[in-house]
């Protein structure tokens, strides 16, 4: 069975890059959003196996989205944060909010594939 993915990122470049990379690996992209509100809606609607989440969105921070989805809505999706923000305290806070893993940009396609695969192994 194909694993379902929702991509939440304001960057069109990143949305397309993540979509193409994960589709090539057999994942099904069930929705993409460019802001936090629509992202939360999509995540609740699909409750996908995986959510890739940017940390700085036009309307809210990714770490707050993770908290809402994991701590308040209690969805079981795994969340991987993909962000240019690489401060240790930010990464720690994201993980405390329910983010399973964190990728700091820039990164290679293989890094994403490996991190995502590790989440399901």
């Amino acid at each position, binding site marked *: 069975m194909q694993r379902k993915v929702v991509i939440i990122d*304001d*960057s*069109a*470049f*990143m949305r*397309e890059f993540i979509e193409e990379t994960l589709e090539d690996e057999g994942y099904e992209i069930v929705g993409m959003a460019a802001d936090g509100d629509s992202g939360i809606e999509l995540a609740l609607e699909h409750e996908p196996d995986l959510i890739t989440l940017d*940390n*700085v*969105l*036009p309307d809210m921070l990714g770490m707050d989205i993770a908290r809402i989805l994991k701590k308040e809505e209690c969805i079981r999706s795994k969340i991987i944060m993909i962000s*240019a*923000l*690489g*401060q*240790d*305290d*930010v990464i720690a806070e994201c993980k405390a909010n329910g983010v399973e893993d964190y990728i700091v*940009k*820039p990164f290679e396609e293989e890094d994403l594939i490996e991190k995502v695969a590790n989440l399901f192994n």
Partner: protein
Amino acid sequence: MGFFTDIEMEKAKDIITFGLLESAKSLEVFIKLEIRLDFGDDFSISENLSNKNITAKSDEVYLLTSELIGEIKGTSYLILSKEEVKSIMASVYPNNEFTEEKYIKKSNALVLETDNIITAGVMKNLANIFNYRTYGGVPQLNIVNHNEAVRIISEGTKKDDYVFFKAILSSKTGNIKADFIWLLDKAFVEAVKKVSKNRKISLTS
């Protein structure tokens, strides 16, 4: 100079240089071109940014603006010419055969992501050294002629209580020579003063 002693200025330059080197390294990885960090004749952190400090470009330019949010506030500007964007596109999408419409969409998305990635290099370093919560907002793109870009930056930099610095991110391949201009509020000055008192502070802390 005024706002910094000589020692503080040296410390500030070290902090900024370290962040800019991170930005250059990230840019190199992202666009797959060898990038050099250049400060022109002199690297200074000053209270005024002169228009003559902005490298002239003949064509329309891509002006990318990012707001710095958090305990240190500020703005960064990245200026790329059409030719430079073409070089970056050719490097990132070596086999690109996009229609004109697709090319515009792709190149706009690519330069926005480029700005996001390189701005983070400086910000991450400021946040780590000062132990501040600070991050960049969503970058904005304006495609305008060079004079208009200079006007926008001049308007943006007409602020009291801000300091400015500029570096050039350059690449031999693709002839990239992009101005990367920053203004930071006086929270940066205060933070530098604080860390200058602590001789043991490490740039990688």
